[in-house]
Each structure stands twice: as structure tokens, then as C-alpha cells.
């Protein structure tokens, strides 16, 4: 019954959306949005249709199996690694000279490049389709740096109070949605194509043509130059590493691990240096040349780098926190002690779970604010914001910051920057602490209660609820439902290596709820008796994808196969403007050692897995569940379909703008 109803909801939502899309015409009109990797400068109303035309064109071209018509002046770099689905489409003014087309004949290079997939992405370009076009007027450009850009654009727009009104916002959101739809398909095809090429580099190599242009467009060139530089650097590093490896092979492993860390740092530095140099020499670009880095440091070993799993090498790799605190002073450090403690607790997993991490962060920030004294000749709003940014950088090093934390800090900094400058310190501090307390209370504590209430309505007597690992909101919901006197059974599904489900099981059993405990490989069997699946979420994305502990999408898929509705519990403060369509683009890598250290019965088997060249370990933290596998999302503001994330975000932002 639930399902039917929900389906109806979803359908109507979609219909509405379609209508909206049809209406949508105007793109964002804003001259101030000049982010690093995108520009949205559009004064005409045709742009949206233009953009979508662009998409389809790109798609068509892509399907031509990379045989590009040079007349089109399109550039597709087929030898990009699969992790970057960058697609560049450029249409230049007819005045410009035709760019010389360079074909990469060097088979070796191509195969080497694609085999190593050695393009290290700069974080900002992490993902995206670059559409670059200039229309009739030379200044009109749309560079949509993929979905990321749309997202950023949205944020920017929201931040820009005076220029953009609510109507524009709505339209932009809708446009974004429509673009998302179109782009998604093109991404998938590109993705496939690129993937194929990189898996079979040798066969594809001959065919591959790289069309390079002495482009007038600075941006395009920059990225290209950077890529080139990075490629060079990585290649160099790898070469050096090989030499180093030979030399190092008889040394002890302990030394090695230190060396690897050093090597990693070195590689990054080299890449950066190279990138800088190239951007300096940009004027003479087009000439394919980067200074060769000659580093014969024998200590450089690329072991860690080599151990990156190919598809995920663009993500920040897991590193032990040993080095983090090494250079921190025990007294008089720039970082507040509570932040250092929090960072360690998060990275060690003492504080775990996105809600808990958020609460811990906010309490730490509260302590910081209480201890804060505005330095002379500085303003509280600016100085404190800078400090908090600094703290967040540190936390990000400890473990990538959760969406919940980022949102909470965003909320707080918005409040800080709006703080009038004429109030004194103690007053400002008081207000900030109040703000933090209200945030915790309203967005987390009360939200949790509201969720358990809403979820409780969905739990009936004789239900068998399946839940996966440990989610604080699901835990609360189940406990509260039990307290209400409902009679149901819970299947706790757990997965290696962390076995968080034990914590869930512990709480439920302590409460007295009837539980079964299985590992994820038994889910298809157990699903037959399950009537509902309840999952927690790390974040809910603007396109309705649910980001959650790795394994959730698998559970959802199996539930779909058995026609069991999947309910996701998620507080609205964890909604994110990010748009991702797979778990590769953005994810978090956990300690790969977790996978081997607890292997029974012989612990020693894979102890030196770093030294086994053919072995890679991947310990993913999250995955994405597509919205069509999720029946509904239980939030603090009610039961919603996944797709209503943008609406909720818009309302929230509008609300915060008013305040």
C-alpha cells in the first residue's frame, strides 16, 4: 500500500517537473559569477536551449567512435583516464585561425598514459563535462563545468542576494535539473567510451587521435597545460620510483613506509611545481614541452601511489594520522586543543557517524568560540571565520569532512559574517553559542525525534524491518517504535571490515527488540521475510541519490528484486547541493589495512600486501543509491520522495537569506 501511494507521489512530482522544465527558459543572469572553473555569463534567453543542444551534439559526436570531424573544431581527449570524464566542446569564433591538429602517433606514449591512467586530477576539476561555446556575440559563453558547476552556480546564486531573486532561483534550479538529465546520459556514454579505451589501450592507441589546438581560450589551455604537467610529473615520479624500488628492495619495510609517505608528498609537490611552471610558460604553449624533472633521490618510492586503485586514484588517499600531529606544538599551537582532539577522534573512529561527527564538531566550535578573543585591530567576523576555515582544513586532513559537518559550518559562518561589527565580543560570542545550540537542538536533536516519529508511523505490527550497519536515526526510530509498543522484528545486516552493525545490534538487543544478525552476503536469503528496509544516509544529493555507507545500494537493489520498499532516514540538514551519479567521482577511501588485518585465522597472510605488486586493496566508505530504488525518504519535515531535495534546499536557503 505504501508503495503504491509513494509511486503516485513520485509520478506526480515528475510530471510537475516536466512541466517546469518546459517552462524553464532563463538561465542565471549574473556577471559576478566567475569561479575558477566555470562561468555563467548569459544575457539572452536562448542559452538554456543552446546548452541542451550542445549536450546532444556532444553526445552525437561521442557516439561517432571518436572519429571527429576536424571541421567541427571539437576536441576530445581520449587518452584521459577513465576517472575524468572531461569532454570539451569548443566552438570558436570564425575569425580565429584553425587550430593545427596534432595526431599522437607515439603509440607507446598513449598506451603508457592510458595504462597508468596517470592524470591526477586537480580537485576542482574532479568531474565534469566542459561545454564551452561562444555564440553570436563573442562575450556570451556558457561554460558548464558539469554538474559540479551547476551546483556551485546554485550556491553562488543563493549567496548573491541582491542580484538574483527567488524566481530566478527557481528557474535556475529547474534548468539545472533538466541539464542534469541530459548530461547524465552523455556522461554515461562518455564514461563507457573512455573506459573501453583505457581498458584496451593498445588496440585503441593507433586509432586515437588527439586534437590539440593552439587555443585562444585561456581556460582550456590552462587545464590542458596542467594536465600535461601532471602527467609528466607523475611519469617522472613513477620512473624515479622504479629506480628507487630496485634500490630499496632489500631494505626494511618500516623504512619503506616512511619513504612512501615522503614520496607521496614529493610527487604532489612535483606535480604542483610542474603545473606552475607550465602556467608560467603559457604564452609559448602549444609547444609540447615541459622541463624534465630530474630527481634522483633514492628515497623516492612510489609504492603508495602505485597502490592506488586505478578508478579511485583521484580521491584523497587514506593516510595514517601519525604525521598529522607530529608538527603540532603541544602548547601554543595555532589549532585549538579541542579541534586537535576532535580530528584525532574522528580519524581514529572514536567519533563515528555523520550526526555524531557534526555534534562533536559543533561542540568543539562552541568551546573555541568561548575561548576566542578577538586580536587587536581585527574584526571578529573576519578573523573567526578565517580561523574556522583553518580548523576545517585540519579536520579535512584527518578525515574528509562529512556533508553534515560542512553544512553545519556553512550555516555557522554565514551567521558569523553577518554579525554586525558594532557589538562587543562577549555579546557576539554569546550569540554564536546560542546559534550553535539551536542548530544542534533543532537540526539534529529534534530532527531525530521527528524522524523517529515519522518512521514510527511506517512501522506496523508484525513488520520485519531490515537495516544495514549502524545509523543513529534508524536506531532511534526503531527504539522509539518499540517504546510505543509496536511489535516488530529487526534484521540487522552487517558488513566487513568495520562491522558497525554490531553497535546497532547492541542497542536494539539492549532495548529488548527481537533481532536477527546477518552479514551482507546473506541478504538475498533473508530478504524473503523482510517487509521493509530502513537505511540511514550520509547525505542526500540534489539529484535524489542517496549517499550512504557502502553496501546500501546493494541492499536496495536486492530489496527491489523482492519488492520490498526501501525507506531512507535522513535529516534535512544533511541534504547536499552536490550532484553525483556514481560512487567513483566522489567517495572516501578508508584504511585499506582494515581489510587485511582482521582476516582470520592467519593474520600474517596479507600483512605485507603493499609489497605484492598484483594486489590492490580498496576500502570504500560510501556508495550512491539511485532514487528509483528508494521508496521514500523519512525526514524531519515529513516523508518525501528523493527528488524533492532541491525544493527543500531552496526553501531552506530562502529562509536563511531572510534571517
Amino acid at each position: 500500500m505504501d508503495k503504491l501511494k509513494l509511486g503516485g507521489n513520485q509520478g506526480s512530482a515528475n510530471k510537475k517537473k516536466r512541466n517546469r522544465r518546459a517552462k524553464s527558459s532563463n538561465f542565471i543572469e549574473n556577471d559576478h559569477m566567475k569561479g575558477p572553473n566555470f562561468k555563467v555569463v548569459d544575457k539572452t534567453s536562448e542559452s538554456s536551449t543552446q546548452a541542451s543542444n550542445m549536450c546532444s551534439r556532444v553526445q552525437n559526436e561521442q557516439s561517432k567512435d571518436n572519429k571527429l570531424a576536424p571541421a567541427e573544431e571539437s576536441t576530445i581527449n581520449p587518452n584521459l583516464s577513465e576517472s575524468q570524464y572531461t569532454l570539451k566542446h569548443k566552438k570558436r569564433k570564425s575569425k580565429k585561425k584553425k587550430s593545427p591538429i596534432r595526431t599522437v602517433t607515439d603509440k607507446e606514449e598513449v598506451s603508457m598514459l592510458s595504462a597508468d591512467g596517470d592524470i591526477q586530477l586537480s580537485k576542482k576539476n574532479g568531474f565534469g563535462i566542459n561545454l564551452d561555446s561562444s555564440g553570436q556575440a563573442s562575450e556570451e559563453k556558457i561554460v558548464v563545468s558539469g554538474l559540479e558547476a551547476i551546483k556551485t552556480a546554485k550556491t553562488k546564486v543563493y549567496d548573491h542576494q541582491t542580484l538574483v531573486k527567488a524566481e530566478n532561483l527557481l528557474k535556475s534550479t529547474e534548468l539545472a535539473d533538466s541539464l542534469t538529465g541530459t548530461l547524465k546520459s552523455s556522461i554515461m556514454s562518455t564514461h563507457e567510451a573512455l573506459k573501453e579505451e583505457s581498458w584496451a589501450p593498445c588496440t585503441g592507441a593507433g586509432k586515437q587521435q588527439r586534437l590539440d589546438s593552439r587555443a585562444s581560450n585561456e581556460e582550456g589551455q590552462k587545464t590542458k597545460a596542467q594536465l600535461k604537467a601532471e602527467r609528466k610529473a607523475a611519469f617522472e615520479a613513477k620512473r624515479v620510483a622504479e629506480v628507487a624500488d630496485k634500490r630499496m628492495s632489500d631494505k626494511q619495510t618500516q623504512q619503506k613506509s616512511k619513504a612512501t609517505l615522503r614520496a607521496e608528498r614529493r610527487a604532489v609537490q612535483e606535480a604542483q611545481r610542474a603545473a606552475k611552471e607550465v602556467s608560467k610558460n603559457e604564452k609559448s604553449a602549444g609547444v609540447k614541452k615541459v622541463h624534465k624533472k630530474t630527481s634522483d633521490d633514492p628515497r623516492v618510492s612510489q609504492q603508495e601511489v602505485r597502490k592506488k586503485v586505478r578508478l579511485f586514484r583521484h580521491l584523497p588517499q587514506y593516510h595514517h594520522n601519525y604525521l598529522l600531529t607530529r608538527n603540532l606544538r603541544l602548547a601554543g599551537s595555532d589549532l585549538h586543543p579541542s579541534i586537535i582532539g576532535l580530528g584525532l577522534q574522528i580519524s581514529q573512529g572514536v567519533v563515528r557517524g555523520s550526526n555524531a561527527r557534526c555534534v562533536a564538531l559543533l561542540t568543539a566550535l562552541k568551546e573555541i568560540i568561548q575561548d576566542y578573543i578577538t586580536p587587536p585591530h581585527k574584526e571578529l567576523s573576519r578573523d573567526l571565520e578565517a580561523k574556522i576555515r583553518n580548523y576545517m582544513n585540519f579536520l579535512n586532513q584527518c578525515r574528509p569532512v562529512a556533508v553534515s559537518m560542512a553544512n553545519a559550518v556553512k550555516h555557522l559562518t554565514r551567521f558569523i559574517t553577518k554579525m554586525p561589527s558594532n557589538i562587543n565580543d562577549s555579546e557576539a560570542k554569546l550569540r554564536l553559542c546560542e546559534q550553535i545550540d539551536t542548530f544542534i537542538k533543532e537540526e539534529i536533536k529534534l530532527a531525530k525525534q521527528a524522524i523517529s516519529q515519522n518512521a514510527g508511523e511506517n512501522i506496523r505490527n508484525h513488520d520485519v524491518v531490515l537495516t544495514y550497519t549502524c545509523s543513529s536515526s534508524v536506531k532511534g526510530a526503531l527504539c522509539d517504535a518499540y517504546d510505543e509498543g509496536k511489535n516488530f522484528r529487526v534484521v540487522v545486516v552487517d558488513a566487513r571490515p568495520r562491522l558497525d552493525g554490531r553497535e546497532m545490534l547492541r542497542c536494539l538487543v539492549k532495548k529488548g527488540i527481537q533481532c536477527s544478525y546477518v552479514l551482507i552476503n546473506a541478504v538475498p536469503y533473508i530478504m524473503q521475510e523482510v517487509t521493509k528496509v530502513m537505511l540511514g544516509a550520509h547525505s542526500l544529493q540534489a539529484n535524489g541519490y542517496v549517499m550512504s555507507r557502502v553496501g546500501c545500494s546493494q541492499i536496495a537493489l536486492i530489496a527491489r528484486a523482492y519488492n520490498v520498499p526501501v525507506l531512507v532516514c535522513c535529516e534535512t540538514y544533511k541534504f547536499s547541493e552536490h550532484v553525483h551519479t556514481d560512487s567513483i567521482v566522489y567517495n572516501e577511501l578508508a584504511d585499506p589495512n582494515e581489510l587485511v588485518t582482521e582476516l582470520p585465522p592467519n593474520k600474517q597472510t596479507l600483512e605485507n600486501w603493499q609489497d605484492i605488486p598484483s594486489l590492490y586493496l580498496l576500502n570504500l566508505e560510501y556508495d550512491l543509491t539511485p532514487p528509483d530504488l528508494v521508496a521514500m525518504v523519512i525526514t524531519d519535515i515529513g516523508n518525501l520522495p528523493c527528488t524533492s531535495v532541491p525544493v527543500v534546499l531552496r526553501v531552506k536557503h530562502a529562509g536563511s537569506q531572510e534571517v
Partner: protein
Amino acid sequence: MEFQAVVMAAGRGSRMTELTTGCPKCLLPVGNVPMIWYPLNLLKRNGFQEAIVIVPEMAKNEVSEARIDTKVDMKLDIVTIPSSEDWGTAESIRYIKDKIKVDVLIISCDLITDFELHQLADVYRTHSASLAMLLAPVSLSLVNAPAPGQKGKHKRVRDIVGIESHTGRLMFVNSEADFEENVPLRKFILTRHPVVQVHSDLMDAHLYLMSKWLVDYLVENENITTIKGELLPSVVKKQFYHSKTEGKNDITNMKASVTSVDPKKDIHSHKKTGEWYDLLSELSTRSNQWGSLDDCYHGDQVRCYGYIMKDGLCVRANTLGSYAEVNRLIPKIWDSVTGNSERPISASLSRSKSQGGDDSMIGEGTNIADKVTIKKSIIGNHCQLKEKVKLLNCVIMDHVTVEEGSTLQSCILCSNAFVGKGSELKDCIVGQQQRVMDLSKLSNDVILEIEKFIEI
């Protein structure tokens, strides 16, 4: 500021009275630098700009004369404890309670180590511990080092330490003397912490990180006199005992059980758990030890951790033997122990034809005549070594004169000592301003001014 540093330098050197009769223990030279310089240097390297130094009153002048603060470039707050009192470490801490504002790092003045403090601090921070201590494997060479002037071995008092190996949680820390035949371990503790390693070969480095509230607790419990002997074992033990009133902070009761002062001023007010602590623990999805229905950390509020040094060097120069041995080692370990610091006193080799190896250190203004052989020795400032003097394994403090043709082996010569011509000393200690007659042959002897010795 995260930690405040307190250097405990009020020790009397009861295990090396031969040396400390004329010189406070903390100023005894190790590698021509006062011993206290090493812990201060360690603190300095870890970012401490200031430290509280506790010294006995009678040593105050000497300590301030030594100008330690300029040597380490730190702001030192030298606190003297009245000489009339024979205070333990806990009492000293209680004495300076008003100066303690945040968590404290307590370090002994005789600790010489290349340990990186952040490792201990990380354990402390990660688990929001109440107390964290550094444990180091005892190096046998130091323990068995022959102590000059002593017949028979000094009996070492061992510590028995029980520690949960994968977390570093301390189960018990006691001196050997606290137990009779058996080391008892409560069953319920073992149920919660099934893997406990019991060490008898670990040395307490006397480096503690202690939370502020524990200091407050110490202040209120005046019957605790020492940190190591009383506070530590009792706090470690009380980790596992919860209050009977479930839900309330269990330290409240623990406190009440120790002293029955009025319960309003209990530790509950000392140990702040924060407003949102309950929510946080409710939300945390951290998995506990498998098979237990207890909360995280089994609901323990007080948590004590130990960090066992894996490699590196950790020495306490608190006995004669270890003092002599550290001095012998110091030329080799200088760089690692001091983090490549410049030597505060330039240790230059004299230009004479004497043979001095890399294994020796020679202080400023020391005159070394021809044909002097120096091996594995530390020679202080302004010493006079006459011709044909042979030194092996010796520690010679400032203003010492060794006359022609003397042979010294494994000796400690305190400042202003005088050794006459042609003497042969082996395993001897020559006290401050003592004279050894010409042509004397001594071994395993202590030459001290008797009256002074008694006076102390």
C-alpha cells in the same frame, strides 16, 4: 594552550646521595649540561614556551645561577618548595595548584629520551583520557651498569603494569612491592578487557599527561602524597568502578568513596562532559567490543592510558649506575636525544696532543697537558688534566684537577675535586672539594666529607 608543563626537579636524588651532597640533583651534569636541560629541551622542541619548575628551596640559588632558562630559551617559573617539608610529587602539584589552568604535562628532571611527545599526546587526545603515561622498556645495559663506589647490585624496584595491548588502556600500575605473591585481577575487568598484557620489564618514564580535573581531584584529596605511588594506582583502579546511581557521573561516587566530603564539590563539577555529551554518545555509531552490551568504553568516564615506547631511547638518570652510564652514552646519543640542538657549552677538544676520541666530551677552559689519554669520558669546564693522565669511562665535573700520571677508570669526580700524583682510582666517587692523596690506590670507594654526609 593545550598543556602546561611542570618539571619535577625537587627530587633529592636519594639513590645517588654520593653525588647530590654538594649539588642539587637537577643540576648534576650529564654531558656537561645540567640534567634538567634535557627535559626542558624536549619541552622546547615540542613548542612549550614556558614551564613551571619545582625545585627544593635550598637549591633555588644554584638553579637560578645556572641560568637554565637562557640556555633553553624558555620562560621558566621556578617554584621552590620549603625545605622543611619532605613533600612527595603529588604534594608539590598541590602546592602549585593555582598556577594550573589547563591539562598538565608532568615530566621528571632526570628523563633523557628521544621520544616524540605527540605520540603520547595523541593517545591522550584520542580517548579524552584522564591520564596518560609513558612506559619504556628497561634497557638492561643501563640497569646492570656497574655503579661506581658500590659493592653489590642496587636492587631495582620493578613496576608491574597491566595494559590492554591493542588500546593501550591501563589495567593496573603498581610497584612490585604492592603485591605479595600474586597479582590479582578482578574477573569483571577481565571480562570487559579480555586481552591484558602484564609487564614487569617496563619503566615508568615519569612523563604524565594529566587532565585538569584530576589535578583538582588531587587538590581535594590531601592524603595522596605521590603521583606514582598513590595517585596513579588508585586512579587506574577506579576506572572500572562505576557509581551505583546509574546515569550519574560515576566519578561523583568514586570521589565520595575516597573522601566523604560534601558531595556538592565533587569531581562531577571538575570533569566537564559538555552539554551535548549525552546526545553525542547516543548518536555515535562506534562499535564497541563485541559481545558486550555496555556503552562505549564500557561507560567508563575515567580512562587511563599508557604508551609503550617501541624503539628509541629512554633513560632516567636517577641512580648512580644509570647516571654514569648515561654520561658514557651521551656523546653517541646527543643528536637523537636533543634533536640536533647546538650544545649549549661548546665541547671543543683541546689542541694539545692528547688523544681524545669522539666518544668523549670536553668542556670549556679545560687544560689538557701532553700525553693525556681520554676515552669514553666526560670532562667538565675549567679542569686541569696534567701530563700522562689516563681517563677511561670517567665523569669529571667542573674545576677538577688531576695531577700527573694518574689513572682513573670508571670514576665520578665531583666539582673542585683534586686527585694527587700517580693515583690509581677504579670505580670510585670523589665528592665535592675532596682531595685524593698522591699515589693512592683505591677501588670501589667513596670519598666524601663525612660530616656533610651525615648532615644531609
